[in-house]
């Protein structure tokens, strides 16, 4: 999983910053399990629903296990105008899974996301924290192969 960069300095206020802690936990464990959220709530002395509320608010936080590589295809208008639908179909074919699913070997998960700010090089997608632009069905194969 991705290392939390040192830039996200955990200052004294942050010892209790729920969002920062959830992001760190997700980096370590890949997703936020129920057990993890309960433990976090207990250690911070806050309600489980508060932890759950923050965990489910942000689309980049997951409460279900994900593949090692989480593919997020942009579904917003500028990418739609540049054939994002074809990219989605290509991915479905290459991976053999539908949106919202994970491959049986646990390698890839596949979902939609909203505008990622790459509209000048649409259609675009993210795989974990990396952005891939100017996508074509051919490039999809190459990109997936390069994911070890």
């Amino acid at each position: 999983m991705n290392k939390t960069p040192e830039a996200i300095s955990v200052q004294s206020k942050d010892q209790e910053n729920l969002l920062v802690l959830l992001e760190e936990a997700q980096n370590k464990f890949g997703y936020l399990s129920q057990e993890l959220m309960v433990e976090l709530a207990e250690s911070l002395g806050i309600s489980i629903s508060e932890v759950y509320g923050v965990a489910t608010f942000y689309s980049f936080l997951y409460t279900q296990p994900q593949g090692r590589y989480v593919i997020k295809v942009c579904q917003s208008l500028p990418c739609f105008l540049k054939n994002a639908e074809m990219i989605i179909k290509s991915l479905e074919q290459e991976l053999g899974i539908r949106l919202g699913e994970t491959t049986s070997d646990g390698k890839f998960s596949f979902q939609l996301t909203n505008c990622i700010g790459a509209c000048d090089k649409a259609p675009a997608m993210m795989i974990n924290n990396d952005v891939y632009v100017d996508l074509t069905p051919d490039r999809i194969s190459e990109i997936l192969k390069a994911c070890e």
Partner: protein
Amino acid sequence: MPEKRIVLRNCDVIDPRSITTYLDRDGFKALEKAHSMAPEQIIEEIKASALRGRGGAGFPCGLKWELTKKSPGDEKYVICNADEGEVGTFKDRYILERDPFTLIEGMTIAGYAIGAKKSFIYLRAEYYYLLDLLVNALSQAREKGFLERFDIDIRLGAGAYICGEESALMESIEGKRGDVRYRPPFPPTKGLWGEPTVINNVETLMNIPQIILNGAHWFSQTGTEQSKGTKVFSVSGDVKRPGVYELVLGSRLKELVEDLALAEKVKMVQIGGATGRIIPYDMIDTPLSFETILGAGAITVFEESRDVIDVVYRTMEFLAEESCGKCSPCREGTEVMVEILEKLTRGEGSERDITLLEQLSEAMMLSSLCGLGQAAPNPVMDSLQYFRGDYENRIRESQSGVAA
């Protein structure tokens, strides 16, 4: 050609990984000059420049700083809003990729002016790949001693459009759900952790060093009566040359879309993203300014074959999904609009649906807690105003049993 690179003056000129290349272009001279001025003088200069926020709201920057400076508080903050979630907007990404130093300098000047020692860059999670670059730029600035009296931390978002709204952004930095706050109080009075806070868009802060170096008078010579300076536009969609363009405010949409971005057979243009305006091609001569039409400058072009109702439907889907859910007008209103529009795209609908859209729009504009809900009706209302025929044809087809 109305292209004028003030904000973008260093982009593709300096090396964003080397502060030396920035120093060679008058880098941090504005900060030096600022330190020789009283904070009040700096604020007066920014006020005199008439710089307005570049993130979409266009609030007078100098006034924001002044209110924050005057508010009592022990620990004030500067926040740079680098959430850039508005659909079709990527100018801040472009800027951060190429010139993080001007941003750092702008923030530092802001901090000095309002009396803040701490600040944050709230960077959307989708721009995570820029983190290294920013961290590197900050550490070089620190090494050179520019961040002695004022430091900058980076806080990441986690995939929530509403966290580009200033109050939801602050909630997010505080570690909570990105719920919108009731206002008043506004950030200059009570912002981050209840302290006086200045929140400015990336592009707004990028303007600061040049204004300090060249003076307010220099800045206010460009632009229109109520919109001074330049604006960085993000152009995408059905154009041959998508990308970032910086133009003098008051330039016409036609110059941007047709002359620079090479669009042809345009049906309509969406200006300001999902919460922006939609205008038909016959208004292509409209000047781009705060007093006419602007937003944060996202320009998405749709050519003749595009389906207006589908465009509006997809826009509403986005807004309904991203609504924080706190206030009923937005949470419920966007959902109902999505349902109605989805019916219409499938070729099912009636005149009653249009009436309902109009009534909902009014209610949402009047009573939503923030700009998302207040502006969500824009694409619906604009498309009904300029493309009502498309809606009526769709309804007529569905009622006569002809496929849409």
